[in-house]
């Protein structure tokens, strides 16, 4: 056994694998423990053998960026080791994600809770951006929630570093509902602003408790965006008509955000509006967003330990980091392949939402935390 193998065996011994919790296209996730102190971890086993042209891209990306990014609001990669022909990533164990929380209708969000989640998201995102890493797949189920309430950005399978001038990046990234218009128009040269759009959509989703811009196809996604925010003019977004995949999709008038977000404060709408500006250069940066008055206004953001949590644990539920493969041919809204025993995200129109449930549950801005 040479030195490398010995070191690997040494490392492998540190972690104990328990039961399988989920399977994705390129990885299987196990629940595990650290041998020394029984700390819970998630072990993501990447199947290497199946791929003819080497290791899957997402796995490389994930390891590449998570090895370097260490922040309170970013999932931690604890260790990497190989077993037989497989590569194993040892990740922090996180029990729920923001999507589960949004979908759990028994939970009531206070404005302070939303503020707290947003602040944590922006903090994690700002950390990625300051290190010139674009996440490129922000959505509620990639925002994991730790047991102490801390929100952590996960799934760096689509992340990449900021491109050098003149280098093309792919525009087939970010789950459709959270994809900004410049990517839908096929721009190959973009920047950190793409992630901010996604966060804007998540912000809106937290307030509405239903996806804000659920387009069914890429074409429909553009239409959905323009229906909500108005068709951009050349003045709003100079040069967008010259983008590679530009197609006119009809004229929609701009409706004020206030019409949909009736209970939101002026500060909240101002921040939301700035995250959803068409012109990517004018879109607020993560750093500026953290300094937005919304976060300083009362109520103060909830302490993470007081945030609503999903109460009942379903043991069969696979972990979120399971999938992460770009599935270009999939017809569903996700870029990712859905894990086998996961419910697919259902599309619901706001009308159904209203008739089905009491309105008060959707958002409660009046109640103050005692």
């Amino acid at each position, binding site marked *: 056994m040479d030195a490398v193998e010995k070191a690997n065996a040494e490392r492998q011994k540190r972690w104990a694998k328990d039961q399988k919790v989920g399977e994705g296209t390129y990885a299987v996730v196990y629940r595990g423990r650290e041998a020394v102190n029984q700390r819970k971890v998630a072990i993501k086993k990447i199947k290497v053998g199946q791929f003819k042209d080497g290791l899957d891209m997402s796995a490389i990306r994930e390891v590449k960026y998570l090895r370097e990014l260490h922040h309170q609001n970013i999932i931690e990669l604890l260790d990497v080791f190989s077993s037989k022909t497989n590569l194993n990533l040892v990740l922090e164990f996180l029990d729920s994600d923001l999507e589960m929380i949004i979908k759990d209708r028994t939970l009531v969000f206070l404005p302070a809770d939303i503020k707290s989640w947003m602040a944590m998201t922006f903090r994690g995102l700002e950390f990625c951006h300051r290190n010139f890493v674009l996440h490129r797949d922000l959505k509620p189920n990639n925002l994991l929630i730790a047991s102490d309430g801390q929100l952590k950005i996960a799934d760096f399978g689509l992340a990449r570093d*900021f491109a050098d001038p003149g280098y093309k990046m792919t525009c087939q990234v970010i789950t459709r509902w959270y994809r900004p218009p410049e990517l839908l128009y096929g721009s190959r040269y973009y*920047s950190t602003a793409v992630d901010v759009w996604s966060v804007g959509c998540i912000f809106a989703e937290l307030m509405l408790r239903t996806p804000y811009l659920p387009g069914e196809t890429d074409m429909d996604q553009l239409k959905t965006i323009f229906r909500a925010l108005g068709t951009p003019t050349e003045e709003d977004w*100079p*040069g967008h008509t010259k983008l590679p995949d530009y197609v006119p999709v009809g004229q929609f008038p701009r409706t004020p955000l206030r019409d949909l977000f009736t209970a939101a404060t002026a500060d909240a709408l101002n921040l939301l509006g700035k995250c959803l500006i068409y012109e*990517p250069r004018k879109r607020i940066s993560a750093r500026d967003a953290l300094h937005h008055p919304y*976060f300083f206004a009362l109520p103060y953001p909830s*302490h993470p330990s007081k945030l609503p949590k999903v109460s009942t644990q379903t043991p069969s539920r696979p972990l979120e980091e399971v999938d992460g493969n770009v599935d270009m041919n999939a017809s569903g809204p996700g870029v990712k392949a859905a894990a086998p025993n996961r419910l697919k995200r259902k599309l619901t129109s706001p009308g159904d939402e209203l008739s089905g449930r009491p309105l008060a549950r959707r958002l409660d801005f009046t109640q103050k935390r005692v």
Partner: protein
Amino acid sequence: MSNRANVGGWLQGKTIRKGGVVSTNTHSGRSSTPQVQSTSTTVFGGGVKDVSGRTSEYFSMDDQCPVCKSDRYLNPKLRLLVSSCYHKMCESCIDRLFTLGPAPCPICQKVLRKLAFTPQTFEDLTVEKEVAVRRRIAKEFNKRREDFLDLRGYNDYLEEVEDITFNLINDIDVAQTEERIQAHKKENASLIEKNIQRDEQYAQALREQEEADRQEREQRALEARREEELQREEREKDRREIIDRLETSNTDAAKVIAKSRAEANKRSSARTTVDSVLKSNAQLLRSRAARSTTIPDVPHIPLQDDWYAYEDAYVLMNSYEDPYSEAVRKDRDGIMRAGGYRVDQAWERAVRSAVMGLDLLPLTEQGSFSNSCPADIVMAPV
């Protein structure tokens, strides 16, 4: 004669409202500060006395009544009281001047009533006045940070309160200021009431906590005393037993003593384990109580590290001589701009990467990294 018992009652923290009727049958065993002696038939209460009762009425050997010039040498029971216009005079002067109804103050001519005289707490009467004014204002202006939409509004409010307080302390526009107070009171009546209740609830919670702590302490003291008693009895019994045994048995005396000693030791060690169990129980209770108190929300702090403190390591120029990015900057088709790509971000990255390692200490001989790295990019521990 004086009703000293009442004075004692007052000093032990009975609330006697200014001008209120004082019941004369509060008998307390002893007066906590025997040097203050009242010669008046009226019991003077109020003023800014310490609620906890730790400080008593101000009293000095050099006291002299400014009105009748009588001093402690002439009248050992001299007690000076303070009027609502903050002038001092002795009890006999007060009795003499104000018994027949309101009369002008002999010093400033303000019309005073007998019951408006209060005991003195502070040596300096300006302090006395300031404390009284602040106490009164705090009762009426009790809004909190949560009652305002923004920090600005709260600060303005605090400014106004301070303004009013200052005016009252220094007798500036008193009538106008009083009007302002009344207006505020009328406007915010319900809020003030609510805040008073909130404060009371908080005080109540504190009192309960204190009470619980006290009971626990007492319980422990009792336990300890009982323990001691038990131990003493046991020792006594042991001794008697040894004597008995020595009397009756015919084994070696030293052996008998050693045997009973060992038994006693065993018993005492058993006791200490019981003790520690009791102690850990108490600790558990306390920690649980600490956890159950809610963690307060804290104001938003945008970034929680000092990353941007190091921005002075370089200055980013507006433009660089950069043939590499020329095509991008010319952007003939305008697609870079519309897609949001920014050359300046690429430049920033390059410059930042260039200066990033500058404050790192060079590798030492052992090849270990120093920990003074300001950058957040640190390789994962491998």
